[in-house]
């Protein structure tokens, strides 16, 4: 698949901001990377390989993402930690007009307050993004976690 350099650059920057926004605990900024009509879900490779639809987390529009983040800020309690995402290069698989599909491998480390780090999750993103006039918006993000055995709990998004 031939991908124009400016498209690749724009989407690479989008993913860098995606990771940094979560790692900097700017979850509200993370939400703003999505289009209003969007879909975000976290599934596991174990389920995907059996064609089972179970989700660990599923927001099928941007308001549900806003609700998740607001709930984390004010309602839910979870392990106190820092996140650190390490992303691989974008691997493009298709496009229709301004819509681009690609996959990215990720590693997500968590560090607790006393400084111990652990590998929290490893897997891939399957992404659909819209690029218009050098501006990119996420339409669909499916996190397919190889790490089906969630350590402790899953709160802050992958």
């Amino acid at each position: 698949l031939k991908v124009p350099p400016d498209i690749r650059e724009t989407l690479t920057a989008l993913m860098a901001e995606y990771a940094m926004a979560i790692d900097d605990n700017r979850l509200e900024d993370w939400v703003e990377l999505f289009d209003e009509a969007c879909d975000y879900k976290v599934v596991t490779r174990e389920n995907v390989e059996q064609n089972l639809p179970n989700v660990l987390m599923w927001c099928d529009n941007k308001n549900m993402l806003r609700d998740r983040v607001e709930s984390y800020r004010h309602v839910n309690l979870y392990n106190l930690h820092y996140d650190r995402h390490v992303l691989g290069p974008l691997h493009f698989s298709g496009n229709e007009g301004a819509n681009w599909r690609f996959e990215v491998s990720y590693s997500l480390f968590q560090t607790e307050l006393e400084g111990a780090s652990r590998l929290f999750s490893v897997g891939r993103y399957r992404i659909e993004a819209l690029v218009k006039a050098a501006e990119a918006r996420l339409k669909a993000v499916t996190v397919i976690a190889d790490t089906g055995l969630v350590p402790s709990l899953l709160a802050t998004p992958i």
Partner: protein
Amino acid sequence: MTAEVRWPRNDYSRVPYRLHHDEGLYALEMERIFRGPAWSYLCLEAEIPNPGDFRTTWIGDMPVVVSRAKDGSIHAFVNRCSHRGATIVRELRGNAERHVCLYHRWTYSTAGELTGLPFRKGLKGEGGMPDDFEMKSVSPGKMKVGNCAGMLFGTFQPDKAEPLEKYLGEFGTGSSGASSTGRSAILGYSRQLIAGNWKLYAENLRDTYHASLLHEFFVTYGVDRATQKGGVKMDGRHRHNMNHAFAATDTQEDAKAAYADTAARLDRMQLRDKKLLQFNNEFPDSMNLAAPTLFPNALLIQINNTIATRQIRPKGVGAHEVFQTVFGYADDDEAMTRHRLMSSNLVGPAGFVSMEDGEAIEVVQKATRSAGEASAVVEMGGRGALRDLAHRVTESPIRGFWSYWAELMGMEPGGAIR
């Protein structure tokens, strides 16, 4: 480590923290509970519908294969080769005519019997097994399997165990509308590894006091509040329990008054998209929350229209896996399946009303390692004899859990309640 327990009180209103840290007790639990006369939850019948279908699972820390034989009967056997102890079935699931150990190709039937081994008669009259070697005598250990409304249970000591129907009592069938698991359609699995002793999870499931306090989401968005009509039922032996609540049986005013001294934000927050809270009343009993918890390792949970089983898998004294099987029913249409998946945002490792449990258990495990002979206080809902309650401000079923745990372990205090 000594495998003894000094109970401060005979009604289990004090529980020594040491019980979550003692390696010796953990080994005895594996022997006296999971390999003892208790019935443990294996999997759903719907997961092995066809002859040859199998799943691997864990009962305590014992690897087990659940398998449907050619004649349709269901078997559960230890997943360990009789020869040198290798794992026989390494896949999580599948369909097979027989199971072959990779090491020396010893072969087992779908019923878990050793049926063949290479070079048994040797080669050209040399080598081979002794003539009097009987394959039957070394077949892997088997569990007796029982089926209750589509949930499969097994016990390693059928001679000492009560019949399954009696063991589960009303908690088997009819304890909630969701228990008609016989027509279930599997939606998928989730797994969570919690760094805490498995009994902390068993206690958590019997502690209705924490639900609306730790899981503030319940109260804030009105999914489940202690002010709803509901209660806690236990079986006659107080080893199982069921927390339940009926939909739409309290008012916002009741709830505001009751939660005035907590941090709950009943008025200030609204979900922008409320569909994950929607409850389609599909059960005759109108319960929007029903959670029968079965000793030692199972939970059947229905929150709104999400239905799941959870199996507790101990992973050493300081950790356990929570293995969740989410399902719907075979006659669900596409919209209902979507709705069930959407409301499953509430449960599981990332669930709005369940993520906190992992954290609560881990911080207990962390802080009690150094607790010496100190004990937890379990008095919410009262001391002394155990009884059912038409409210949920209680943790009495925790005392029920410990009373049966102590009985199976042979560690009851003098004059113990049961």
